[in-house]
């Protein structure tokens, strides 16, 4: 049942460029994919280990700025720049993680929020490097590989889709691997996990690094897809927005980040004239969800199908 849904979703995703008439819609969908990759990163740390990293968007920014700067200032082609961007995000993630993971609960959220805002302040103020509030423009598209060129909307769409597929695959593999199970074991009961011989600190750091890797990947994709980049993509409000997508989609699930992002981005664009009002609904919705329906859409769906199967 679930496998069938995934295959249908994949088929639709591949067919979208032929189905939608305007590149405008294609851009919206691709943008949603990029956000979803970042939300998957947030899901790894929040959903699997129960820690809320409020600096997540800053790691997105590290990946994005690394790619943009390496391409525009150092003249690197996209592919090695993307690798370097992800690496930069993971290295910084390891540094921040090894310090912040010593704190717990509320302190962890506050600590990471502070780190995130500091990074965003650097993006805004280091004008010689980052272009300040204007940011970086004219980031070149990826060079072609053999006959594959990546300079149009459709090829870029497929590139983003590929990154998303890779992300979902990684998350799925990790979730069902021994490492993934230890993530959840720690989130459920830290003392018990420690008693079972799990190196809690190390496992948490692994989760944090994977999370920042995905944030960096999303950032690199963002820089590539849009061709420009500013510090407003890296602030606390962006992390909050990603958190919203995750909670609505379903924390700790495999489909949740994608479903939540697509549904909310879709609704937001349906409510065109209402764009600015949308958080009047989404804000209270978030409050209601954590209280009455903390599973989100994907979590609710699995519970439903499980009930069916039990019948």
């Amino acid at each position, binding site marked *: 049942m679930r496998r069938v849904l995934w295959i249908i979703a994949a088929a639709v995703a591949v067919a979208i460029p032929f189905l939608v008439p305007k590149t405008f819609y294609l851009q919206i969908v691709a943008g949603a994919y990029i956000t979803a990759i970042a939300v998957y990163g947030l899901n790894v740390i*929040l959903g699997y280990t*129960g*820690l*809320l990293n409020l600096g997540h968007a800053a790691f997105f920014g590290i990946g994005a700025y690394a790619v943009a700067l390496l391409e525009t200032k150092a003249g690197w082609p996209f592919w090695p720049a993307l690798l370097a961007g992800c690496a930069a995000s993971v290295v910084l993630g390891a540094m921040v993680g090894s*310090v*912040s993971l*010593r*704190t*717990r*609960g*509320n*302190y962890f*959220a*506050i*600590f990471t*929020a*502070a*780190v995130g*805002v*500091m990074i965003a*302040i*650097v993006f805004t*103020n280091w004008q010689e490097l980052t272009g300040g509030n204007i940011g970086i423009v004219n980031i070149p598209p990826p060079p072609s590989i053999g006959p594959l060129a990546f300079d149009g909307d459709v090829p870029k769409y497929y590139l983003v889709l590929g990154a998303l597929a890779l992300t979902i695959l990684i998350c799925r593999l990790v979730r069902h691997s021994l490492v993934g199970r230890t993530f959840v074991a720690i989130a459920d009961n830290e003392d018990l996990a420690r008693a079972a011989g799990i190196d809690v600190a190390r496992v948490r750091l692994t989760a944090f690094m994977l999370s920042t890797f995905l944030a960096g990947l999303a950032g690199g994709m963002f820089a590539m897809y849009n061709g420009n980049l500013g510090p407003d993509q890296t602030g*606390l*409000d962006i992390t*909050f927005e990603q*958190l*919203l997508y995750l*909670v609505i989609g379903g924390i700790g699930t495999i489909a949740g980040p994608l479903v939540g992002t697509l549904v909310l981005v879709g609704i937001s664009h349906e409510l065109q004239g209402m764009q*600015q*009002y*949308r*958080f*009047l609904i*989404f*804000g*209270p*919705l*978030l*409050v209601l969800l*954590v*209280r009455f329906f*903390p599973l989100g859409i994907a979590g609710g769906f699995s519970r439903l199908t499980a009930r069916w199967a039990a019948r």
Partner: protein
Amino acid sequence: MHLFFQELLNGLVVGSLYALVALGLALVYGTMQIPNFAHGHLYMLGAYVAFFGVTVAHVGYWPAMLLAIVVLALVGVVLERLVFRPLRNAPEVNTIIAAVGVLFFLQTLAQVWFGGDYRVFPTPYDKVVHFAGLVATQQQLIVIAAAAVLMVALFWFLKRTLTGATIEAVAQNRAGAALVGIDPNRVSMMVFAISAGLAAAAATLIASISLISPSMGFTVILKAFAIIVLGGMGSVPGAIIGAYILAFAESFGGTYISSNYQDAIAFGVLVLILTFKPTGLFAKGT
């Protein structure tokens, strides 16, 4: 040396603002362990209520402040009752997520209702005072004095009245307080009312020095968190001392080091403290 004293004065003004905001945050955290990320947006809402009190209803500066305090106290009570109380036994992360929901709502509400532009808050106290070669506006002096009065009043309330003592009792031991006949839910509502009221007072005081806008809550809240971590989460005197330390650090750091990175000082301090002391300075034994 003259510059030094001028910065000292500025530090006092900003410190008074920070202290009032951080106090509210610390009270809520101290009694309920709720990190209220929406606190900065209550502060923003308070600024707007007072702003419309002065510009539309023409009630005058001090009545407008009183109005803002009352309105925000009510908002605080509603938030406690509808959002935070049902989540008391939920994981810590859920409380933060709910607070983020509230924050989104309030920010959008302000944007839709009041527009996104910056507004100038008119003050009747805009004359410049010269004292011993230093320059200050009357409003700056009022901020310092009013904040001091409010803090003394709060201390008197917490330490010298029976109602204040119930707050301290609930902070120390919620179940124990309930056992001796204190209604912890009533105390929680009261704490939220005081917290939001203080934020409204702070907003009214500072609004006529800086500008008001729907996003003014964002930086303030993070600084307030830095302060209460600095002062020991939930400690009231710690929040006040932390506020003035941070304000002086910013004021002098902005002048003598770099004004671009002035805002980063708070977060640098926060990161440093939590790096070396992951449970915060002066953490109560947990």
